Structure formats: C-alpha cells, structure tokens
C-alpha cells in the first residue's frame, strides 16, 4: 500500500507542476516547470516498469526540450507584462473552455464508474512469449524505425528551410 501513496504523491506533483507551468506569469519559469513535469513523469515511468521510456523522457524531455525552450525564449526575448495584458483572452472564452473541461471530466468519470472498466485487453501475439524491449523494437515494431527516421529527416529539412537566409538578407 505504501507504493500506492508514492504513486498518488507523484501524480499530485505532476498535476500541480503542470498547472503552474501553464499559468505562470513568466514564460521562462513555465518552461523550467515543464522540465519539472518531465522529471516527475520519468520517475512515474520507472515505477510503471518502463525504464527505457523513462530514460528517454528524462534525457530528451527534461533535458533537451527545456534547453530548446529556454534558448528560444532568450532569443525572442518576449516582453512580459505589457504583452500579457494586451493579449488577454476574454472571460466568456475562458468560461467556455472551463465548461468543456468539466464536460470531458464528467464523461471520463462516467465511463470509468458506470461502464466498470477494470482491465486493459492484451494483444494476442504479445502474450505468447516473454519479450524484451529490444525484441519488440527490432522484431515486432521494426517498421516504426523507418517512420522515426523519416520524422527526424523531416525535422532536419524543416530546420534547414526555416533558418535559410533570404536573397535580400545579409
């Protein structure tokens, strides 16, 4: 039962940190808090027996993405107070967003409680033999690797195009 309390505590931290990350006044602190969210998510992934995913989450999301965010914010140097006041969303839009959130939460709770979902179906092929992550990557989901390579190449191509200097630019 102690394990359950650790899970609850970590989930509480994830939710609180993400709320602060989206609602903080200064964007750079929001980006740092996002790194904190990734850190707590990676601890949860370790506890949910997904160590490789946790390692990726910790190194890429908590490390690389936070660095990219901070560098983008420091390059663009956003004006905090004036810009924030000018770009405020009207109250009725916030109310509509809040109502839609309450609706989605209600639907989730209804599905879980009324439909009595207490299991996740297991894939037939996957339940046959004990398999490691390495086996599943290279034998079962090897087509995903091609997709990943294509996505990375797309990203490289996009970065090259976006940072290319124009003809009239010096």
């Amino acid at each position, binding site marked *: 039962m102690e394990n359950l309390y650790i899970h609850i505590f970590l989930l509480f931290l994830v939710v609180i940190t993400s709320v602060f990350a989206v609602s903080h006044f200064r964007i750079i602190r929001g980006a740092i808090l996002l790194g904190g969210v990734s850190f707590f998510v990676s601890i949860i992934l370790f506890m*949910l027996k*997904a160590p490789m995913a946790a390692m990726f989450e910790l190194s890429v999301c908590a490390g690389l993405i936070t660095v990219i965010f901070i560098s983008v914010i420091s390059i663009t140097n*956003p004006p905090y107070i004036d810009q924030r006041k000018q770009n405020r969303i009207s109250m009725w839009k916030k109310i509509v967003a809040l109502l839609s959130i309450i609706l989605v939460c209600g639907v989730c709770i209804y599905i879980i409680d009324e439909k009595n979902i207490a299991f996740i179906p297991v894939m037939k092929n996957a339940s046959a033999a004990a398999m490691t*992550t390495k086996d*599943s990557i290279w034998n079962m989901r090897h087509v995903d690797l091609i997709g990943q390579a294509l996505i*990375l190449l797309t990203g490289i191509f996009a970065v090259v195009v976006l940072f290319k200097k124009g003809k009239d630019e010096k």
Partner: protein
Amino acid sequence: MNAESLILFKLYIMVTPLLFIIGLFSIMTTRNIVAIIIGIEIMTKGVTLLFATSGYFSSKPEITQNFIIVMIIVEVVILTIAAGLIINIAKKYDSLSTKNIRNLKG
C-alpha cells in the same frame, strides 16, 4: 486485478485526461505561441502516462515503451520546427502573439 491495482488503475485513468485537459486549457486561453507549445507538451505528457499505464496493467510494458519512444521523438521534432517558426515570427513581427499570424497570406 487486486484492490490496490484497481485503485491505481482508476487513479491513472482519471489523472492522465486531466493532464491532457490542462494542456488543452492552456492552448485555448492564451495567445502567446511559447505558452501554446508548453500546453502541447503537457498534453503529450498525459498521453505518455496513459501509454505507460496501459503497458503496466496489461503486463506488457515493453511494447508500450516503443510507442512512448516514438512519441518522444515526434515531440522533439515538433518542438524543433515550432522553435524555428517562433524565432522567424518574433523576428518579423517583434511579438509572440498569435494575432499576428492571422495576417499571413498565401
């Protein structure tokens, strides 16, 4: 599934949509592009946790780890492209508001 696992399962199933919704709320209620990207990141965190939960409770975490790794890679590529776009928009308009992007033509 014993009682403790059932509580844990329901807890995760309720918290992961909450994270998704927090990100969605951030996207809906701001005009700052960087804040929108932070919201998208938090949405993907919720999906990551849902994948990990499904893997843990179906006793096959090694399969869902693949999906999580693919998703992290997609997340990084999205952020990199978004970073390039944000820098270009900030250079052009000297602002990070999404109001300016409405003026784009083509």
